[in-house]
């Protein structure tokens, strides 16, 4: 239990460190960042001046950090110039959308990668294995940008809605109608995201299973006459869980970056799309907050993986 | 009058922390003296602290307490340039030369390395001296351009000794340098070591768990057990009448047969 507590503390410290890094970036911004904000007609000079003093934008770094941290803890995270409101209320729904997209994509990717990887490892050299290798090689070479554009084309051709989360017409419809609509909009971006994740997952699952199947105790189990399927699922798979769970932790980070890209291409209103817009709008706090949230998800993913490892791997518990 | 020991360890103490609170005492008030022109053997079980002692005496590790003296001069706290001047006088040869020789280098460069570090710039001069050292160890010139992994174990050990030799040391500490080689090879290299001792007035600190080999080479034997020197006598005396339990155990574990 103590080690989990330590791990949680470590994750928290990492988060704080990332926040310091982000604020540091603000401080490093050359002067004309604020000049370009002035150019935006939506923001009055008085607003800028007021916010500058309120958040200590031109004060020394610790002051700025302190103000921002206070605001963040209140759930606001500073002020959005473009939306003319506190940053928090804008971020949360977007974060939820990203989680929805990323979650579905993760589920989809794992649902394919896990059985496929196990099968490919179990039957080395068979068509399943070769198919896996081919898929991995192909998908690895195609960057997500290209994949996204191709899928976008495909979506347009097949009449899948691509762009946004909900069709305007359905905005007022009932829950089930809305959900169906969201799912239709969700489909393509989720497939794209999953396809980007798939080669990594598939190759690692297969490698982990192959490694597990080579270990002596598996051979012993076979020697005892236990059926291959049983050996595979009851003995090899749990042994391969350790690297697979670590893989999950690793994939969360890549997922965040990839989802940013996918959101941009498909117009899914998530955190990534918000960040891009905030950059264009010179919306300082939204940029920092989006970065922090993305980091937060990555750290949370790793933490969850650590907990799962602790629960699933007796060797770690014994330490 | 007693001659001044060439290399001397006085009341060395060294401990390693283990975990949070415990400490393992590796050297416990160890004192050892090596006189010029003599061979001192240091025997003991593995884990008794021999290698740590070897490293301290070769000035590769600092003891927590105590002193190392070369010809009466305290050298334990030297550093920088002064230490570098003293270093060539005491050299250490390890058991596993495969690890002590950088596998990417050629033999001739490995042997010449100390010269290079000392600042002998001329490549041809370094090569000359390296080849000279090689021939004294009985290594054919053909070996010069090979890498350590292309050599046999015995050849590698000889390369390591040649490298130690090239700096004209006064003391060579051999830390299990012959262990792991097959018996005829051990005998061969031991013979070479004796020749070198004569030609270059060397003194040896011969560390081994093999009492037979140690006894055949050395003048004196010191027995180490759990970080302490429990006995130190001329060879004949120790073999005839071992005083310590550790010495007796080692003697008893040797299969019967004459020890020369």
């Amino acid at each position, binding site marked *: 239990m103590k080690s989990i507590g330590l791990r949680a503390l470590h994750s928290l410290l990492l988060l704080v460190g990332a926040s310091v890094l982000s604020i540091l970036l603000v401080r490093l911004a050359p002067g004309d960042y604020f000049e370009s904000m002035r150019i935006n007609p939506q923001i009055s000079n008085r607003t800028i001046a007021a916010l500058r003093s309120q958040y200590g934008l031109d004060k020394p770094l610790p002051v700025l950090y302190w103000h921002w941290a206070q605001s963040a803890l209140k759930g606001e995270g500073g002020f959005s110039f473009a939306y003319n409101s506190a940053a928090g209320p804008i971020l949360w729904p977007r974060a939820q959308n990203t989680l929805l997209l990323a979650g579905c994509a993760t589920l989809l990717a794992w649902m394919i990668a896990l059985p496929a990887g196990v099968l490919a490892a179990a039957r080395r050299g068979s068509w399943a294995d070769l198919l896996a290798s081919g898929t991995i090689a192909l998908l690895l070479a195609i960057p997500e940008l290209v994949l996204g554009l191709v899928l976008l084309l495909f979506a347009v051709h097949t009449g899948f809605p691509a762009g946004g989360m909900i069709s305007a017409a359905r905005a007022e419809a009932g829950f089930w109608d809305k959900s169906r609509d969201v799912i239709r909009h969700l489909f393509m971006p989720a497939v794209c995201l999953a396809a980007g994740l798939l080669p990594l997952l598939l190759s690692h699952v297969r490698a982990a299973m192959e490694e597990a199947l080579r270990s002596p105790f598996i051979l012993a189990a076979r020697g005892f006459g236990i059926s291959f399927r049983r050996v595979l699922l009851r003995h090899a798979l749990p042994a391969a869980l350790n690297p697979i769970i670590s893989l999950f932790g690793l994939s969360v980070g890549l997922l965040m970056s990839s989802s940013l890209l996918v959101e941009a291409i498909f117009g899914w209103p998530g955190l990534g799309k918000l960040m891009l817009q905030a950059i264009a709008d010179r919306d300082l706090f939204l940029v920092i907050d989006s*970065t922090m949230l993305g980091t937060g998800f990555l750290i949370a993913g790793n933490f969850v993986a650590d907990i799962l490892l602790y629960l699933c791997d007796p060797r770690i518990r014994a330490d | 009058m007693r001659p001044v020991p060439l290399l001397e360890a006085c009341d060395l103490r060294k401990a390693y922390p283990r975990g949070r609170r415990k400490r393992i005492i590796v050297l416990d008030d160890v004192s050892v003296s090596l006189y010029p022109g003599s061979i001192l053997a240091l025997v003991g079980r593995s884990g008794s602290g021999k290698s740590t002692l070897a490293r301290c005496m070769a000035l590769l590790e600092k003891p927590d307490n105590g002193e190392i003296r070369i010809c009466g001069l305290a050298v334990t706290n030297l550093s920088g340039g002064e230490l570098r*001047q003293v270093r060539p006088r005491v050299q250490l040869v390890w058991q596993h030369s495969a*690890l002590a*020789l950088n596998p990417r280098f050629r033999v001739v460069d490995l042997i010449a390395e100390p010269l290079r570090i000392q600042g002998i710039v001329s490549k041809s001069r370094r090569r000359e001296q390296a080849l000279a050292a090689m021939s004294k160890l009985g290594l054919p010139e053909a070996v010069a351009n090979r890498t350590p992994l292309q050599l046999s174990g015995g050849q590698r050990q000889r390369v390591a000794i040649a490298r130690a030799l090239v700096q004209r040391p006064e003391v060579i500490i051999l830390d299990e340098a012959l262990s792991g080689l097959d018996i005829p090879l051990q005998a061969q290299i031991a013979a070479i070591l004796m020749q070198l001792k004569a030609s270059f007035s060397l003194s040896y600190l011969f560390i081994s768990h093999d009492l037979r080999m140690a006894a055949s080479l050395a003048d004196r034997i010191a027995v180490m057990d759990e970080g302490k020197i429990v006995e130190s006598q001329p060879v004949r005396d120790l073999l005839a009448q071992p005083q310590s339990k550790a010495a007796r155990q080692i003697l008893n574990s040797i299969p019967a047969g004459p020890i020369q």
Partner: protein
Amino acid sequence: MAFVQSPKLPLVALATVYGIVTMAGFFAPYDYERQNRHTALAPPTRIHFVEPNSRFRLRPFVYRWKLRPGTLHQYEEDHSIAFPLRFFASGRPYKIAALIPSWIHLFGTRPEGNVFLLGTDEYGRDVFSRLLYGGRISLFAGLLAAGISVSLGLAAGVFAGYYGSWIDETIMRAAELFLAVPWLYLLLAVRAFLPLRMDPAGVFLLLIAIAGTIGWARPARLVRGVVLSARNREYVLAAKSFGASDFYILRTHILPQAYSVAMTQARLYIPQYITAEVVLSFFGLGVGEPVPSWGNMLDSLQSLFVLESCWWMYAPAALLVIVLLIFEWFFRAESSRFQAR
């Protein structure tokens, strides 16, 4: 297949690609800025060998595109004049490697004619030429960024691994921090606070610097591991016993190994950084108009019409995939050769 195993072949292929984009001025018939507003979004020029009267001509020729009356983007060939293709033709001047002026292009035609091998974009600029110039940006940005990040990682890893204690702790914690932020978020965050509009040269350097500094953490960790294990080897201790200084030990015994790990890493990173530049430019945060990069060329595809009807605009994507495939081929060949040893 034995020849597939040799890493020399993909290496040659990569060198060729890089060579071609370096000599973009020569291979491209036009520069990247020249606009032809009357032939915007035109399909690739068709190359003919047979005249309308079925006469075969050895030298290929092309026709101009003419806008079909009453349409915005539909073209038909203007058969009134045939423009023969010229090879090693004189054309717009350019500079080889930005130094030596030249005006010979691989192919071209009379100024009144147009040979758009890959059609034109929405401003009527030749896509083929922009592809080559854009490739120069994307491919070299990736190369240089990988170089910078690995160099920084090498330095950090060597310091951390060799000197240990607080230096090691600090560097490793910093690395952990940089790795805790998703890479694209970090890249964008850093880019966000720098001026949006910079001259193309400035942006290019900027890109390289950013991507480079963000990617130091992973190589640093790897190098540190190698250095740690090398530092404790007995041959390092032996060198110390000969009186070697830290500097000597680092230079002679530790750096070569650290360096070879770093080189392996660098090779893996180049395709990733190329992709990163393309993504950044795609968002409009990289090299700006009118300088092409494969990323900002792909940005045009965000318009529905272009996405659906202008297949030639996918060229940068196709080329990117091809280059990445060649890199992948190179890695496989390298690693299989390593295993075979």
